[in-house]
C-alpha cells in the first residue's frame, strides 16, 4: 500500500506540473501571437499594397512564436505517458 501511495503522490505532482506547462505556455504563445497579429492588421490598414508580403512574414513568425509552447507541450506529453520520475521507485 505504501508503494501505491508513493506512486499516487508522484503522479499527482506530475499532473499539476503538466497542467502548468501547457497552461502557461499557451498563455505566453497566445499573447505573443495576438500582439504580432494586431501589428499586422495595423500595418495592413496603413499600406494595403504590402498585405501579401506581410502575410508571408506573419505565418513565419507564427511558427517561431509557437515553438516554445509546442516544445513544452511535447515535454508535458512525455511526462504524461512515460513519466521518468517514476523510475526512482523501481516500478
Amino acid at each position, binding site marked *: 500500500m505504501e508503494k501505491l501511495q508513493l506512486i499516487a503522490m508522484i503522479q499527482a505532482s506530475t499532473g499539476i506540473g503538466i497542467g502548468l506547462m501547457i497552461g502557461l505556455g499557451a498563455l505566453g504563445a497566445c499573447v505573443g501571437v495576438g500582439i504580432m497579429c494586431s501589428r499586422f492588421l495595423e500595418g495592413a490598414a496603413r499600406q494595403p499594397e504590402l498585405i501579401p508580403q506581410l502575410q508571408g512574414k506573419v505565418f513565419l513568425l507564427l511558427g517561431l512564436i509557437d515553438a516554445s509552447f509546442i*516544445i*513544452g*507541450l511535447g515535454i508535458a506529453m512525455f511526462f504524461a505517458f512515460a513519466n521518468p520520475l517514476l523510475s526512482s521507485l523501481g516500478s
Partner: protein
Amino acid sequence: MAAEQLTPSEYIAHHLTFFNRPVGQGGFWSFNVDSILVAAILGFVGIGFFWWVARGATSGVPSKRQAFVEIFFDFIDRQVSDIFHGNRHRFVAPLALTVGLWVLLMNAMDFLPADIMSWIAGVLGAPHGFRFVPTADVNTTFALALSVWLLMIGFAIRVKGPRGFVHELFCEPFGVGPFWAAPLMFFLNFAFNLVEYISKPLSHSLRLFGNMYAGEIIYLLLWMLASAGLVATAAAIVLGFAWSIFHILIVALQAYIFMMLTVVYINMAHESH
C-alpha cells in the same frame, strides 16, 4: 489488435513504439529502422520525382507536371533570394529545395491514419510498433538540425577564414576592451556566442519535433475519447475533423519554417558583425 482488449496507455504505447534494432551495447547504439527507412524512401521518391520531371523538361508549353515543379521551384527561389544575398544558385537554393521538400514529405506522412498503417506494418512483420512519421522522431529532426549547424560553421570558416572565425568567436560582439580586461572579454564574448550556437540547432530541431509529436499524441487522445460512449464518439469525430484541418496547416507551415530558418542561419554565417 482486433481481438484483445487494450488499455488506453497500452494503445498509446503501441503507437509510440519505434521499430528499434541495436547494433551495440546500450540504448545509444541502436537504430530506429522505421524512421531511417521511411525517410530514405521519401527522399528518393520526392527528389527522384523532381529529377525525373527536370530531365524531361521542355522549353515550350510545359506539361502539368513540369508546371507544378516550376511553380514549386520559383516559390523557393523567391524565398531564398529574399533572404540570402550571395550566389544562391550554387548551393543554398538547392539545399533549401531539398530540405523543404523532404521535410514536407516526411511531415505529410502524418496524414495517413495510424491504426490502418500499424495494421499494415503488423501484417508485414513489425507487430510491436512501427512509427511511420520520421519527423516525429527526435533523432531525425536532430540529424537535420545538426547537419544545418555543421553547414553553418563550415560556411563561416570558409567565408571568414579560420583566423577570422576564431576572432569572431572570441572578440565579437563586445569587443576587446583595455589590455587588462582582455581575458574577461574573451570569456564574455565566447559565452555569448556559445549560447547562440547551442540554441540555434536546439530550437531548430525541437520546434519541428514538438509540432509533429504533439500532433500525433493529440490524434491518439482524440481517438481514445471515442471509446467512452456514443456522445463522446460524436465529439471525437467533430474535434478530430477540426484538428485534422488545423494539422494540414501545421505540416506545411513547419516545413516552410524549417527551410526558411536553414537559409537564415546560413546567411547569418556569411555575414560579419
